[in-house]
């Protein structure tokens, strides 16, 4: 499972990381320029679709959730601060959260984090990423770092990012003590941070 998510990586990046000029796009979104919706889709539609398919594993459902994602961004774009960053992280967060909410609703899982998901979709929280961050070489670094993680550490990250699990939920799923899971999570995140550390703007 671990290496799978990082395979077939590069075709996406070429599309996903064309994020220069998001400021102008964001301004047009805010002024309800309908063509901005099309442009935003052209930039991030494929990425959002890929991410959602990765989470829900159903392309039909993913189509619905992509529409939901873009409408949500459109409707909330008024609160986006184009001076602070790119749209991509925000679109990604919204897409991920819609997909995870969907999977949870299927599993009738306690949505203990749903309020949090909603709150963290505020563009102010997500869109603090410098345009330059999501560049192909940076993400290539990340892929390499991810691949180097021990299986258990990759697993906990996948459960957090693509299944929306909290640490106690991971412990239950992996039948491991909570303390062990927490250690894996922290160690894994630290490794990734170190690998791409300088690439991330402070």
């Amino acid at each position, binding site marked *: 499972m671990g290496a799978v998510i990082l395979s077939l990586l590069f075709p996406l990046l070429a599309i996903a990381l064309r994020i220069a000029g998001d400021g102008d796009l964001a301004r047009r979104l805010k002024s309800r320029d309908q063509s901005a919706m099309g442009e935003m889709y052209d930039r991030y539609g494929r990425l959002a679709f*890929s991410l959602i398919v990765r989470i829900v594993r159903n392309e039909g459902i993913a*189509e*619905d959730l992509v*529409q939901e994602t873009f409408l949500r961004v459109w409707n909330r774009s008024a609160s986006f601060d184009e001076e602070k960053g790119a749209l991509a992280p925000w679109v990604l*967060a919204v897409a991920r959260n819609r997909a995870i909410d969907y999977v949870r609703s299927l599993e009738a899982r306690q949505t203990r984090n749903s309020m949090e998901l909603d709150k963290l979709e505020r563009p102010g929280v997500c869109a603090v*990423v410098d345009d330059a961050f999501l560049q192909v070489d940076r993400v290539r670094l990340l892929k390499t770092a991810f691949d180097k993680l021990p299986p258990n550490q990759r697993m906990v990250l996948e459960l957090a990012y693509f299944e929306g699990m909290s640490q106690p939920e991971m412990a239950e799923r992996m039948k491991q003590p909570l303390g062990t899971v927490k250690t894996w999570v922290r160690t894994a995140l630290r490794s990734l941070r170190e690998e791409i550390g300088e690439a991330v*703007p402070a």
Partner: protein
Amino acid sequence: MNCDDLADVFELYALGVLEAEERGEIEAHLGRGCAACTPRLRRAAALNAAILAVVPDTAPPRGLRRRVVSLVGSGRSAWGWTFASGSVAAALLIALLWFSVRDRELESQLARERANLTRVQQAFAFLNEPETKQVIFGKGEPRGNVFVNPRTGVLLIASNLPPLPVGKTYELWVIPKGGAPKPAGLFQSDREGTAIYIQSGALDLAATGAVAVTVEPDAGSAQPTTTPIIVAPVAGF
């Protein structure tokens, strides 16, 4: 926990997967405006975005772009949002509605059939009365039969009725000899222009000159306002 411990899980915080206790701690800490932690949170959000961007590439279907753009088409944004915000729930709702509409359609169809059957049964009963007399009217269109019975009233069986304009209805009249027409009920035809209508009640055959039908406004009229489409003289009973 100190700054470093908290910052260790900023990614989880930004993902929304932290338990309430740790989340509360982080929020309280950030709320105090920790200068060191703000950029760390920013980095965490960046790392999250990068990890989420690293998924297998799947091409969306061609039509998806059009659907996304049309969600904010002119004058449709509010509705589109309502639709899309629960697209999955909406799909279920649509399915549910479809079934219930179909149920309702079947139900109303059944009700219509039942009403038709009732009318036919009543017509048979009416015809079966020994005192029922037949009055034939019309050679062209519309045509049909009027039956009169001193005890049970008037039965009209008509076909080739002209289609009714919206807001109009057929009205039956009983016209006494030498008197003004009396309203005898409103009815509609079916899609084929046929109608079976019974105006129940005693009827003085000797005093009745004719039975007539006009087209009237929905609520009916006290006096005919249009030329009758059916006039069946009641004579010789």
